[in-house]
């Protein structure tokens, strides 16, 4: 007796349809790809790090690093450094896909647009966190700040603030990828939107970076930061497809 053979249309169909990765797996694959690509060349990482060290240095000329007033500026200084250094990383996020039509290939891939966006945002977040940790160490040295004293809380606050920066920055990077003045437009658009998150991060990081405890009325800033992240992550995931594809 002949063995039953699967009907041709079914085998053809199964061969033709690629397995669609789940949302999380798709995002993690993209994140890993971006991180691997960046770690191989380290272009954006090096530029970002160098930039942040230079800014910290310049500020030490502008303000006396040991004076009491400078210690009051610590939060603002740190987040200025993080925001400017971050712009370098965020810009490259989608721009690196432009040569050889890589962006079109990514959009045509089975990974959904929100997963693609989330993957890139995650990669940017990791890279920016790395730059920020090194910047914190440099800051601690230049400004004689006991930043490791409240390490856990400080890293938590920096992580939240960086996520805000990354969530909005990555989406706008997707939005502006094909524009002429992309490098100029991206910071110009991102920073005003981020002002509430930056404000919260600055208020929280100020005391923590100097090793001082947070006053109880500062918790509103933490809630603001968390709320901002939730709202804009949801908004960005909803609009990711529109931003990338149309």
């Amino acid at each position, binding site marked *: 007796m002949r063995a039953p053979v699967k009907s041709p249309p079914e085998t053809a169909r199964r061969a033709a349809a690629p397995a669609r990765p789940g949302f999380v797996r798709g995002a993690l694959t993209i994140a890993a790809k971006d991180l691997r690509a960046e770690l191989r060349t380290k272009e954006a990482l090096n530029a970002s790090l160098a930039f942040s060290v230079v800014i910290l240095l310049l500020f030490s000329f502008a303000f006396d690093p040991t004076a009491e007033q400078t210690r009051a500026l610590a939060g603002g200084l740190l987040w200025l450094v993080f925001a400017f250094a971050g712009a370098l990383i965020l810009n490259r996020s989608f721009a690196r896909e432009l040569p050889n039509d890589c962006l079109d290939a990514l959009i045509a891939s089975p990974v959904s647009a929100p997963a693609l966006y989330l993957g890139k945002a995650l990669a940017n977040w990791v890279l920016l966190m790395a730059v920020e940790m090194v910047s914190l160490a440099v800051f601690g040295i230049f400004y004689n700040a006991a930043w490791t004293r409240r390490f856990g809380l400080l890293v938590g606050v920096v992580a939240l603030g960086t996520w805000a920066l990354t969530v909005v920055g990555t989406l706008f990077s997707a*939005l502006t990828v*094909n524009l002429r003045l992309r490098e100029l*437009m991206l910071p110009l*658009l991102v920073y*005003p*939107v981020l002002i509430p998150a930056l404000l919260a991060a600055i208020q929280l990081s100020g005391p923590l970076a100097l090793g001082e405890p947070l006053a109880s009325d500062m918790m509103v800033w933490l809630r603001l930061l968390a709320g901002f992240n939730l709202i804009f992550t949801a*908004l960005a995931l909803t609009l990711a497809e*529109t931003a990338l594809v149309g």
Partner: protein
Amino acid sequence: MREKTLIVLCIVAAILLAHNLYVILLVLPDEVAQGPIFRIIFLHVPAAWTAFLGFLAAAVASALYLVRKDLRYDAFAVAVTEVGLAFAAANLVTGMIWARIIWGIWWTWDARLTSMLVCWLLYAGYLMLRHAVEEPTQRARIAAVFSIFASVDVPIVFFSIRWWRTQHPQPVVWGGGSMDPAYWNMLFLNWVPLLLLGMVMVVIRLRQERRQRELEALRRMAHAL
């Protein structure tokens, strides 16, 4: 909207403004602590209300564009945003002039002035973004996404900066507390002509967008020949 309707709206607005100006300058009593400069509030606050209405309308129009893909929604969005920016600028400048008299300095980092400045920068960015994109459909899509982000951000900006200012109190532009009902009524009464003028400007701007599209169609035809 026809020419005639626009002109009628303008005349109605002018009459209302003239009447209000008379009441503001000659009928309403002086505010005890601040003197005559207080009367600027009757332009300062309604201008802000008009601006916010414009930004809200822009957000709704942007969302509608993304859903329906009709470029008319995009034209409406840019029109109300531009007019809103003009009124927001008027609010900022009158606020600064007020601050100069009351506090002696042009800028005070007061919660409301600062928040309005951030708003202004946000929507000025929207206009800059539009200038950077040439293709109409792409421009409409990108601008719509940004407009939605900006409008979600506006209430958060106001809340966060107000909290920042309660933690570090600075001179406040408008003290809180209740206002005399005569003042309240005039605030709303003066809002009406500003709204009418705003509507006229939006209609003019909308017609220009439509004309711009006709222009591009003509250009394509001219190059095809």
